[in-house]
């Protein structure tokens, strides 16, 4: 068991090469957790994406971290490269993007989860990254755990059995 847990909060990202570390995104709802691993240098990073893209893009984007899918993937891949990773070796796994709530509210569509998944996939392909495994969609929350030691990703939910990606 790893003994060091780093919680990746909403819109945050973190990269670690410490084999004793587990990166965790707790309670993903419509958010998408993105785990990227380079098995050769045994370094991984995780991002907790909240929204597909920034609306009305003229604001300063420093400090938004991994809130938006496109920026999150760029930053995560770049930080992994800085830590010795190489894009062709990177293994990507994602979880989340659920639709927990659904009701008509002034034509509101509650589709952020779905849009997050699409935006993350698009950003991955733009960055030349291949998606290895995913557990996305549905109508339930997820917690995603990513062991830096071996790149193992597990997804736990309420009322469903744990899944290994």
């Amino acid at each position, binding site marked *: 068991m790893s003994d060091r847990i780093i919680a990746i909060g*909403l819109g945050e990202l973190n990269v670690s090469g410490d084999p004793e570390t587990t990166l965790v995104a707790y309670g993903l709802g*419509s958010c998408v957790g993105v785990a990227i691993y380079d098995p050769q240098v045994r370094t991984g990073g995780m991002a907790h994406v909240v*929204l597909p893209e920034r609306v009305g893009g003229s604001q300063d984007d420093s400090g938004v971290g991994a809130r938006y899918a496109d920026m999150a993937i760029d930053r995560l891949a770049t930080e992994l490269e800085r830590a010795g990773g190489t894009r062709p070796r990177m293994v990507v796994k994602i979880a989340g993007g659920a639709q927990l709530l659904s009701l008509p509210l002034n034509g509101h569509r509650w589709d952020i989860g779905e849009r997050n998944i699409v935006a993350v996939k698009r950003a991955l392909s733009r960055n030349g990254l291949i998606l290895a495994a995913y557990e996305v969609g549905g109508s339930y929350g997820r917690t995603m755990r990513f062991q830096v030691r071996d790149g193992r990703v597990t997804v736990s939910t309420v009322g469903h059995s744990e899944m290994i990606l």
Partner: protein
Amino acid sequence: MSKAFVITRAQYRGARRAVADGIRRAGQSLSTMVGREISMGSPAIKVVPLRNVPGLAGGPEAIVAAAYLGISGDVAAHMVLCFDLPSAHKLVGFLLEKDPGDLNALEFDFMSRSALSETSNVTCSSLLNALSDHSGLVIRPSIPVLVVDMAGAILSAVLAELGPAGDEAMVIETVFGQAGEAVNGHLFLLPSPEALETIISHLGANASCLTESSR
């Protein structure tokens, strides 16, 4: 909220008074529904870093039975009433006058869900009616939707719908409970930045003509 939001002393007092009155009314409604005295903690109006929002109802992985209500009319906002699982089962037991059974069961049957939804509806509507009375704004709740899942997943999904522009969210929160046999819950009101500005400015403007005070 990326831009600075300036609030006058009168507006703040008006907001506090309206929210306190709303919470008091919500507590009365909840107590009447349940047939027992449920005390509402004094409401906190706080600005919370985004990363902390999912953890506000007992931790991001805490399993809760939550009722969600969308708010429309003059303002757009979201409202979530969360009960931890044992509290939700106890509430159902009180409402339907039956043995609550397994307090950690994830499933609620049709009658239980209906009872929880109706209780949430009445509780939330009481708060919203108070805000409407104090501000003069039209505040219309949707029907409640009941979800049993991780608190963090529910709250972050609601937060994402607001399309947070800054690093913080404005949250009106109260913790409530019943002496002895604990029924614990959290009530959250998450307005959009525009809605917050509208509510606050109307509460401040109307504050002087109100005589009722919850203090």
